[in-house]
């Protein structure tokens, strides 16, 4: 759990400077204290703007997904901490190109309060029309009947991609919002953590876990999961994750869905592929088809070990948008 950093209080600022220096053709730093990342170049007039925001420490989420066919701007807080209302308002201003702004982000109390407040502020001050779609895809974080309490995790990558493609097609704010909401509603995720990570400013692990233990259902900031026990064989973990996802939303024969097997950071792709074997078999046994599987590091918690699994159910519209071109430093779809 060792980190390469200088002053822990500058972790995020130095990281953003480096990211924009490495990819100046994609990212541009703006906003107070440079805490807004926008697309390089200027906004396409009358395109709906999509903004996200949240704490740092989840690359590519959130900032990394600014780019063509994805987000327009992103407000970024300290590690695991919400950006300020001001920064969120700035991100929205940057993203606004005359057609309004969609706020698309994960369901975390602090982020929601700040984004709501920023939205109200902007509607009052500048008359920018805006909408909100929250990702709440983590099935372990609340039972289905309290779905609105669920945390947003890797499902947001699908929402960024699909809503981003819709905006790129110059659809209206209403349409982009509908599509984003339908995508959010179509995503189910579950995670399992093997180790914690270290928040730079705190300097210590987010939680403790024994050397031979894992925790099923844990959140990406270390939020408690559904059980903690001895580390199980990979196939058992994969089966349990699939079981939990389909218990929440059944896979029907003929369904088409994308599947994400995501590393929380340290877990290497080798091990994601070991899990993917099982997921593919299970999904196909149910008569469904996997479209564009995503196996890799799409939403992380710095150097945490563990995985998450997301199902994104598709219809014709979402499938086409998922496969439309997109480009950021971490992900390219052609």
């Amino acid at each position, binding site marked *: 759990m060792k980190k390469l950093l200088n002053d822990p209080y500058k972790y995020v600022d130095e990281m953003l400077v480096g990211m924009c220096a490495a990819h100046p053709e994609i990212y541009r730093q703006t906003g*107070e204290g440079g805490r807004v990342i926008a697309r390089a170049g200027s906004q396409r007039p009358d395109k709906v703007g999509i903004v996200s925001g949240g704490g740092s420490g989840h690359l590519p989420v959130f900032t990394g997904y600014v780019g063509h066919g994805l987000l327009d701007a992103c407000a970024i*807080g*300290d590690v*695991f*901490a*919400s*950006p*300020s*209302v*001001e*920064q969120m308002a700035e991100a929205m201003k940057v993203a606004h190109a005359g057609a309004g702004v969609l706020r698309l982000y994960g369901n975390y*109390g*602090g982020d*929601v*309060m*700040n984004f*709501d*407040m920023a939205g109200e502020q902007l509607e009052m001050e500048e008359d920018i029309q805006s909408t909100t779609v929250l990702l709440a895809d983590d099935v372990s974080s609340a039972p289905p009947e309290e779905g609105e309490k669920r945390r947003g995790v890797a499902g947001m990558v699908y929402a960024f991609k699909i809503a981003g493609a819709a905006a790129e097609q110059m659809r209206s704010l209403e349409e982009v919002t509908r599509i984003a909401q339908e995508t959010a509603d179509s995503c189910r995720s579950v995670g399992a953590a093997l180790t914690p990570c270290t*928040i730079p400013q*705190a300097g210590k692990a987010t939680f403790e876990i024994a050397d031979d233990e894992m925790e099923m259902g844990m959140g990406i900031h*270390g*939020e*408690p999961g559904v059980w903690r026990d001895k580390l199980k064989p990979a196939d058992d973990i994969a089966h349990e994750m699939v079981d939990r996802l389909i218990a929440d939303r059944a896979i029907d024969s003929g369904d088409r869905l994308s599947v994400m097997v995501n590393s929380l950071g340290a877990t290497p792709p080798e091990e994601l592929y070991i899990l993917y074997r099982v997921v593919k078999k299970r999904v196909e046994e149910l008569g469904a088809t996997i479209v564009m599987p995503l196996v890799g590091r799409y939403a992380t918690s710095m150097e945490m070990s563990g995985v998450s699994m997301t199902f994104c159910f598709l219809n014709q519209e979402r499938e086409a948008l998922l496969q439309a071109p997109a480009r950021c430093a971490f992900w390219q779809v052609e």
Partner: protein
Amino acid sequence: MKVSWLQDQLPQLAEHLESSAEELNGLDAQLGDGDLGVTMVRGSRQLLEIREELPDDWGMALLKCAQAFTKTSGSSYGTILATGLMAMAKQKKGQAEMDSSEWAGLLKVALEAMQHRGKAKLGQKTVLDPVSAAQKKLESDPETGLLDLIEVVQQTIDEFRDKPCQIGRARIFQDKSIGLDDPGMVAFKRLLEGIVPN
């Protein structure tokens, strides 16, 4: 009282919050991310920055105070506090005078706005609970002095100590939170303590 009264209060309020920073960070570290003291210090430093520029209009002055918190912090408490201040600002728009008899009504709109913003209910062990207690006390006795209000807040803190936090980051540690003071409640007490009774 006029806005100049507020301007006079700010230096010692800021000082009191600086001296409470470590305590608040410590309380928040047990249940959250340990930044509550930082939030209060950053906010009050920003208040000192804008102190001279505060307009005579209570509405505008309170709005600026709210922004001192939204500008300097992304943490929940800053936003909740700013939300309350903004609600009061709307109420006082265009008025250069404020009377202590208005406090009950102002706290009421603030509380409603904060509840709406944070979607928390009373009784979930947050800053809302002492704000509500203080508001009720003022409503029943508009002449209540600051020291008595602080007493009411302390009673609320004591009363909730052995209940679990049900909202915010501390919700994750519901069991652990039993027996611990809610950091936001304590921060509210420190705010009131920073005001010199007149």
